[in-house]
């Protein structure tokens, strides 16, 4: 009895956090209790690393709204995650093979891009990553592109790259794999974005409402600029000329006007900060243009074509 009360109290706390995360409109406290009681409602998850840096995985572990243990034990079955799974070597390749051959419903998370021009540029189990990604995606009930590399290419699509990468949406299109797809750009992806998406899918059986690039409108409906703490300064043409000045950072290279994300509503690391609040122009890490040829620059940098605002 004692334990049950503890559990209910714990769920109440989690629910409080869900409300804070803005996910309460689709999850009631009763939903949460029901999900807690029925283990079979849990979402099976397979997480793979393509051409990636594991930054999105590390970011995922920073989630505070719902404890990682609860994600693993209450809301999902993490069948495979490269950084969490104790399974090693053949155990992993056997497991993934069995997942593909089974009737199991699962959600596929791909972190990083897929080098199809140079398939040997990303290998797992002595096999090009693309040969894992395609069959895993074909069998998945839905796919998640975790981070900017998986969504837009990011640093794996810089000028001068030789690996010929495809993003997850591009791979699915090229392979004619028609699956529900959600893209969560950000370098790294924000943990709140994936946890919200997973909870939504677990509770409702659908992905949240998406824009034309498969991004949840809830997080990517506005540009950084539109919600910026310096928006009024921009309107008043009050621009910073040096790092440390007050005012809009656009003349120092800020990418907030062309980057969709919710950094100034839900800042990084449990809203501890955001790039702009740290006095640094937005580098546009969630945008299709990342990384730009010039990021932070002086207000009079002759290499930058001056835009009129």
């Amino acid at each position, binding site marked *: 009895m004692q334990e049950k009360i503890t559990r209910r109290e714990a769920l109440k706390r989690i629910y409080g956090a869900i409300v804070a995360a803005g996910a309460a409109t689709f999850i009631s406290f009763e939903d949460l209790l029901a999900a807690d009681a029925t283990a079979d409602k849990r979402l099976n998850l397979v997480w793979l690393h393509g*051409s*990636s*840096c*594991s*930054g999105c995985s590390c*970011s995922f*572990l920073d989630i*505070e709204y719902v*404890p990682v*243990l609860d994600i693993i034990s*209450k809301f999902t*079955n993490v*069948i*495979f*995650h*490269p*950084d*969490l*799974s*104790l*399974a*090693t*070597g*053949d*155990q*992993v*390749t056997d*497991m993934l093979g069995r997942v593909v051959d*089974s009737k199991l419903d699962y959600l596929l998370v791909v972190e990083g891009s897929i080098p199809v021009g*140079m398939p*040997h*540029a*990303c*290998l*797992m189990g002595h096999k090009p990553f693309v040969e894992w990604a395609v069959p895993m995606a074909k069998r998945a009930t839905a796919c998640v592109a975790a981070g900017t590399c998986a969504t837009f290419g*990011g*640093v*794996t699509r*810089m000028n001068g*790259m*030789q690996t010929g990468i495809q993003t997850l949406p591009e791979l699915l299109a090229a392979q004619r794999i028609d699956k529900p797809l959600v893209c969560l750009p950000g*370098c*790294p992806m924000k943990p709140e974005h994936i946890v919200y998406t997973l909870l939504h899918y677990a509770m409702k059986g659908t992905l949240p409402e998406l824009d034309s690039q498969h991004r949840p409108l809830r997080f990517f409906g506005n540009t950084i600029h539109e919600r910026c703490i310096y928006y009024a300064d921009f309107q008043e043409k009050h621009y910073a000329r040096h*790092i*440390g000045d007050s005012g809009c950072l656009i003349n120092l290279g800020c990418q907030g006007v062309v980057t969709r994300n919710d950094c100034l509503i839900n*800042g*990084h*690391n*449990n809203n*501890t*900060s955001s*790039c702009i609040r*740290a006095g*640094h122009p937005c580098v546009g*890490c969630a945008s299709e243009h990342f*990384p730009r*040829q*010039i*990021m932070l620059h*002086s207000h009079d940098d002759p290499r930058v074509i001056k835009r009129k605002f």
Partner: protein
Amino acid sequence: MKRVVIDPVTRIEGHLRVETQMAGGVVTDARCSGDMFRGIEKALIGYDARVAQQVTQRVCGVCPYAHAEAAALALEQAMGLRPNENGQLLRNLIVGAYQLQDHLLHFYVLSALDFIDITAILNYRGNDAGLVTLRGWVKSEVESGKIFPAAPFLPRYEGAYAKDQELNISAIKGYLGALPIMADLHKMVAVFGAKAPHPVAIEAGGVTTLPTVDRLGQYKNWLNRAAHFIRNQYRNDLLGVAAAFPTYFNEGKGPGNFLSFPYFPEASGEQHAFVGGATLGGKYQALDLSQITEDHAYSWYKNEPSSGIKPLQSTTLQPLNMAEYQREIARDDGKYSWTRAPRYGGEVMEVGPTARVINTYRSGKHADFNRQIDSLNRELNIGLNEYDSVMGRHLSRLVCALRILDRLEAQLEQVQPEQSAFIERDMPKSARGYGLTEATRGALGHWIETDEKGYISNYELIVPTTWNMSPRDAAGKPGAVEQMLIGTRVADPTQPLELARIVRSSDPCMACSVH
């Protein structure tokens, strides 16, 4: 002869294949393959010099902060600039917190469950809420008849896990407790660096964030909590594992040569907590960067020459195409990794926390540090030579974490509140510079060259795991981890737990190593 392959090696950063040959249960040969190539360093050519800070961090989402620092240091050298005291201190507060997060990640999430028996939770009799939840979940999973019960904690290699129930439970509690502390440490990074992973605010010239009193207060609050965890839970769990596996002070001996770069200065930018240098054949010598070369005789590139290449000597990197790659892997002695082979005066070097400890100790520059190591060694009944081992590497991480923690606490008090931590300077034209630091997993160097407009004309990264996980060089010398594996006895070749423990003790970061 029997071939034992671990592919993929999980609970590391990135894509790694380990292939060994065994005779009579003992490893006679080992090859480590870095299995992912992006080509980021040469792709930087043509980008603005400041972009290196943001982009090189993306070679690694586990230790991005070190790349930010090395890139900023390289550009500062090209600018002829040093940050002011606040800039240096804030930078230290960012990278130091990140290192602590990374040490906890490596011990609890990536390595501990190679020693600790997760199934011990089934016999847990206490009433800690997290452990009770975990016990209930594991129990229901094991009884569920599912095809993958208790994933991601099962399946695992079966072998000799810790038998001490108290140690097992303490470390499992530590695992669960470490996650929120790691999130706090990332918040400490974010409060001055803007975010973690990939902090943006470390730039050549200092740190863009203003150290306001509220930010300093937040940092202190989280630091206090993390300090308590590290000095108690982490220390006890790590020393507990070391006591339960004393033979692992003799397993996984590497080349015995150690390289480290000066690390964690005081506000002046001098007096580093860890002394740089090289230990070769048991003798310490001062750092000489001209000794560093790279080699790709056994790596999947076709540039000529294939060995003795100095940083910035080459502006291109020509990866093998698919057909060439397939030809190489079909050959008995073909190329087998995307990782290149850095060498110091032609020698294979181990880098990482052990190298930091050994070089700092042998340099004799910090009497307090040597006293601390001597006392720890007496407590554990080991000598400095035992640091060159699986358990020695874990122990070195604890030593490094405690030393960084002391400095963070002291340096936090030295920050001048509300004073700028950033100096602006024009982009250096046609200039060169290098930046040296220590990532959590070892010595990291960046080299930059800019053109007449301030764009990058060449860039070079020589990264810790490139040293540790290097393949053979032109002279046929195996890399550091390959040497650690050779000679290891494996109880059950179908469950090569001993080999996985050795590989993970070097804390591989494969995305870094190939970049």
